[in-house]
């Protein structure tokens, strides 16, 4: 039997290793970029804490408001992060999604903190109005989207 050259072994193993464990900084940058782009669109459809980027006819917040303020906050947070997470899942590859799913807390915190940071910069009074329900919805949206998509993508859809 032919002996596989040691160099070839190393190349193949490191290639798969790098694919399975992409660099954290690269992955965080990609997630941030996708989230920023998606946020521009979602903020136009569903303003968060009254913050709206473009004037569109569709305003989901009015529909959500029909369920009352706490539920509206929950749904707004859910919509905001689920859309971002879905865009991330569509753009990134399977290995990157798996890496995110197994560092869910890190990536969810990163998305949430960057969003809250952005809202606070735009409106410093927001902190007082900040809703726990929004946070709950946002966390639910992120974790469930990454969890479900990872499970679906592990096998052929």
């Amino acid at each position, binding site marked *: 039997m032919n*002996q596989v050259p040691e160099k070839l072994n190393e190349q*193949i*193993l490191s290639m*798969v290793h790098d694919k*399975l464990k992409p660099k954290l900084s690269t992955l965080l940058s990609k997630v941030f970029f996708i989230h920023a782009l998606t946020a521009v669109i979602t903020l136009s459809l569903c303003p968060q804490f009254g913050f709206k980027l473009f004037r569109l006819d569709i305003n989901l917040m009015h529909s959500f408001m029909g369920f009352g303020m706490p539920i509206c906050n929950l749904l707004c947070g859910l919509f905001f992060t689920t859309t971002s997470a879905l865009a991330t899942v569509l753009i990134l590859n399977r290995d990157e999604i798996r890496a995110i799913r*197994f560092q869910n807390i890190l990536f969810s915190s990163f998305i949430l903190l960057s969003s809250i940071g952005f809202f606070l910069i735009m409106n410093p009074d927001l902190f007082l109005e900040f809703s726990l329900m929004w946070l709950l919805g946002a966390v639910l949206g992120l974790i469930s989207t990454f969890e479900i998509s990872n499970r679906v993508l592990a096998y052929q859809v």
Partner: protein
Amino acid sequence: MKDLKHLTAEELMLQYQTSSPDAAYLAFNELYLRYSARVYSFLMKKMRNASEADDIMQKVFLKIHESKHLYKSQFKFEQWLFVIARTQVLDFFRAKSRYEKRLQKIAIPEVSNLEENNFDLNLHSLDQDQRELLEMKFIDELSYQEISKILNKSEVSLRKSVSRLLMKLKVGEV
């Protein structure tokens, strides 16, 4: 975690498909340790060229990585692996139209004074070992050093054999 050495290839594939990146890498590593030598031998047999075999070997394992979600555990992993290896080899030959083009090339430098048809006819009348030797030298463009490693013969004797065969082809003895 269960010792990977005791897991079947199919169980390792499941771990490779669904576990955390670290565990998935360990599973891949174990699969690679178990099967890489056999895949490499298979490729060397088909390609007869170390550098091409190396390239295809990388492609095979990259393909395995990228298609891992398509693998179903009811099929034998080994079968799936060799189907991929075979497909990669076929793709390689198809892409280059390797044999046809290079078979034409062989006739030009060494035996240009012969009629092409006669040459092909003569080439086909060589026995399997002789034809393989000429193919390695002129189709695969292996050096005598590389051929000697594959066939386990000395470079000197290979040189003699090749030159003898070419002479035979020229005078139409075969």
